[in-house]
């Protein structure tokens, strides 16, 4: 009996797969087909047992005691009381089916309603439902079912009803989490603005989105009910005249020395039913999650196509005079539904020492993938099919990840786009930065701590100690970005790769961060590769630009050149799309006009 369902991250996303393709997916899945057929055959046999069973399941015939397999009239033999094993099996299937139906439907009715209500409505409602759920979950499972025997009088149907109540919190949790997720979706807000009634929103929008995991859960609930009922019957809890697998296994087990095969039949049957329910549930889950690509081996490094790696550079040619970064004919592909899909198509660019180069493009242009390729942190399924990436003359493509890792954080650093999701939520800012600094500078913990505090001050954080002791969720986005910058510059890298570092920030904060980056760049003399889609940012900080579209660089040049006289039509198109910002405003407020800005 499993009250907990095997969880799967896919359960946390509501289903977006249309009905038709779920069915199609199931039909293509051999596991689904086999288990479904098995279940249908077994359950039908059980339902038809009054018609097809050769004997009454409780009819004891003295001649049939411990009869062997193949005895005329008793195809699977007789048990220790002379009852026909086959008939008992068939009726046991019926018992299991009824158990499954009662247990699962009660759990579903309670859990689904509670989850919808608890997830959708206000937090007061949710808290009360949570309480009841916690209460039910505190009941000690099977012990409760045993202990309440006086109440049920041994009737397994009542016991299954109570089991359903005990199983409900599991379903409630799943549904509630899904509903909470769906509730945040803007289309629910849009429905409310359209004036749709809550009931309709719940039934049409919310329920439909959660149906996948709920259906999967039902299969597991049924399996749990069957297993529970068998277990209880095995213990002897329940009426003795209701045939069930548990009873059969129990008597067969006790009789094992006299007739060793008796317990085997109900074991096989029980195993087939529960196993099929669980495996079918797994298949359903796969069908609802939509096509999931085979999980690739988590390679830590660049996956390079055979023969694509350029010659490794002999150490003598690694010179400090080489451009800090030289990318040549870089090609990166991802496996798609129809073979490989190229996202970076022969990109070439150079970044000289101390230079700030902007890599500009819209979404889907491949600029971020280029940056990841340089760092060697592409997704595991990505493949570098060609090209060369030289960092200070050292070839990176084809380099073992351990060697690449030695360069990361030391020679080349990275600032991500979204500050909050790029900090580990379970560790304080200080401990994360200290770890990074210890790593790239190889210093003791005490030295690292001091270095971190100095760095935090350098990135203009007002109270370094406080931020050091804070967790990521306790600081603002702008502060988090400063923290990440601090970590990135700790080793005075030769090249800093900044991936849209200000896109997620407020515009005033953005200006401050850009000032900071410019200062740091001057002070440390580091080169920066700035990935962005914002031409204003480019105008502010970049010396040269490379414009990317659909995986290719369409134009490069100094910032002034490209802005004044864009050569490529696409660049022109982009520049034209920038909304006109007329002459710089003349702030007319005299300095002594004290208007409150901060509160």
């Amino acid at each position, binding site marked *: 009996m499993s009250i*907990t369902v095997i969880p799967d991250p896919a359960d946390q996303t509501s289903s977006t797969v249309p009905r038709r393709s779920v069915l199609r997916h199931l039909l293509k899945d051999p596991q689904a087909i086999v288990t479904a057929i098995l279940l249908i055959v077994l359950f039908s046999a059980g339902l038809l047992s009054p018609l097809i069973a050769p004997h009454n399941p409780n009819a004891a015939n003295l001649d049939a005691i411990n009869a062997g397999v193949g005895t005329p009239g008793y195809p699977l033999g007789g048990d220790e009381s002379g009852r026909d094993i086959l008939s008992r099996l068939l009726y046991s299937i019926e018992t299991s089916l009824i158990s499954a139906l009662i247990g699962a439907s009660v759990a579903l009715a309670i859990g689904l309603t509670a989850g919808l209500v608890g997830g959708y409505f206000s937090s007061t409602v949710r808290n009360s439902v949570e309480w009841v759920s916690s209460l039910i979950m505190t009941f000690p499972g099977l012990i409760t079912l045993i202990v309440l025997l006086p109440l049920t009088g041994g009737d397994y149907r009542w016991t299954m009803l109570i089991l359903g109540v005990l199983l409900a919190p599991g379903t409630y949790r799943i549904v509630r989490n899904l509903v909470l997720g769906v509730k945040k979706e803007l289309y629910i807000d849009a429905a409310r603005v359209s004036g749709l009634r809550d009931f309709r929103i719940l039934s049409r929008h919310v329920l439909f989105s959660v149906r996948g995991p709920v259906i999967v859960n039902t299969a597991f609930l049924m399996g749990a009910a069957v297993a529970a009922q068998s277990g209880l019957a095995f213990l002897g*809890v329940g009426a003795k005249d209701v045939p069930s697998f548990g009873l059969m296994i129990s008597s067969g087990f006790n009789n094992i020395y006299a007739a060793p095969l008796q317990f085997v039949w109900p*074991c096989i049957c029980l195993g087939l039913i529960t196993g099929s329910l669980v495996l079918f549930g797994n298949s359903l889950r796969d069908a609802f999650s939509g096509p999931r690509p085979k999980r690739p081996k988590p390679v830590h490094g660049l996956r390079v196509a055979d023969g694509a790696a350029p010659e490794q550079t002999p150490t003598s040619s690694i010179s400090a005079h080489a451009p800090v970064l030289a990318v040549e004919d870089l090609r990166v592909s991802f496996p798609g539904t129809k073979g490989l899909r190229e996202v970076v198509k022969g990109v070439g660019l150079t970044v000289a020492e101390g230079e700030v180069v902007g890599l500009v493009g819209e979404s889907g242009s491949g600029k971020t993938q280029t940056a990841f390729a340089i760092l060697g942190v592409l997704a595991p399924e990505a493949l570098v099919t060609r090209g060369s990436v030289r960092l200070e003359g050292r070839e990176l493509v084809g380099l073992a990840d351990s060697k690449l890792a030695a360069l990361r954080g030391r020679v080349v650093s*990275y600032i991500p786009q979204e500050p909050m999701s790029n900090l580990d939520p379970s*560790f304080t800012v200080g401990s994360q930065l200290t770890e990074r600094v210890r790593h790239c500078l190889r210093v003791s913990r005490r030295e690292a701590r001091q270095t971190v505090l100095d760095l935090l001050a350098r990135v203009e954080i007002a109270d370094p100690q406080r931020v050091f002791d804070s967790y990521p969720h306790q600081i603002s986005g702008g502060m988090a970005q400063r923290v990440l910058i601090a970590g990135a510059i700790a080793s005075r890298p030769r090249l800093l790769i900044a991936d849209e570092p200000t896109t997620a920030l407020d515009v005033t904060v953005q200006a401050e961060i850009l000032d900071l980056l410019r200062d740091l760049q001057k002070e440390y003399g580091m080169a920066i590769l700035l990935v962005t889609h914002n031409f204003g940012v480019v105008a502010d900080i970049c010396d040269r630009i490379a414009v990317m579209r659909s995986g290719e660089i369409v134009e490069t040049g100094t910032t002034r050149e490209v802005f004044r006289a864009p050569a490529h039509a696409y660049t022109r198109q982009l520049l034209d799309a920038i909304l006109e910002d007329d002459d710089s405003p003349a702030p007319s407020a005299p300095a002594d006009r004290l208007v409150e800005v901060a509160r």
Partner: protein
Amino acid sequence: MITYALRRLLTGVVLAVLVTFITFLLLSTSFHDMISTLLGPDVTPDAVARREHELGYDRPVLVQYGEWLVHAVRGDLGTSLFTTLPVGPSVLSHIVVTMSIVFPALLIAVIVSVVLGVWAASRSGAADRVAQGISLVGHVVPALLTAIVLVVVFAVELKMFPATGYVQFADNPYGWLRSITLPVVALVIAGMASMTAQIRGSMIEELGKDYVRTLRTAGVPTRSIVLKHALRNAASPALTVMSLEFIQLFSYSVIIENVFALPGFGSFAFSSAQTIDVPVIMGVTLVSVILVVVVNLLADIANGYLNPKARTH
């Protein structure tokens, strides 16, 4: 942190009281039957009613429960109606047997799950499928069948372990170990399934997150990332599963005890339910609930320690 722990403790106590109360309330409908069984078959309804009154079972439910609770808090769980033995010691002696298979099983299952889950998440292909397969066994095969298969194969056929019976640790430590091996294995197989899948799933999810990539760009070694960062974040939902798993294992142990003829909690609970021995049933319920609450509390505290955001709610 302390306030958080205290708050969870208080919640646990309240829940324990509510659960025992509800159980008592539900059982109160059977008091009449209980007294009838106690007195024997040929008794007049008057005699039953009189005895009920003598023993105090005709008083309002709330009053009876209150009296029981007051005694229970002081450690006095009353005496069995049928055997006149004190409830407390009998319950405890039985629960010790059960816990001696449940706790080791939980511990082993957690360790195995973490190792297997982390390993599977860091690999893929064949290795991952093997790990998933191992954990699937426990999910697909009911605990009952696992126990039966183990007994038949290892005890009856191969005679490597005793098929039945429990040896007290104090009497013979090695014998005790042998007598609990198969039951613990059965429990571990049953319990491992959900936890392995949970950890594997959470780890895969964590390893795909942004902060992991950023840590890699900082040159932090992979081992550190997986074991220090990702595992810690993945542990939080896993702890929830773990405390639920305890109730699961507790339930399975009842069945497994029966298969291996261990004098555990399950049979004790069953006999008390059959005779409707209310004081014993209440004792059984109380001890079970306390165990559940304690395990949940420990899991919550661990979660609060690992997950700073949980503390602030």
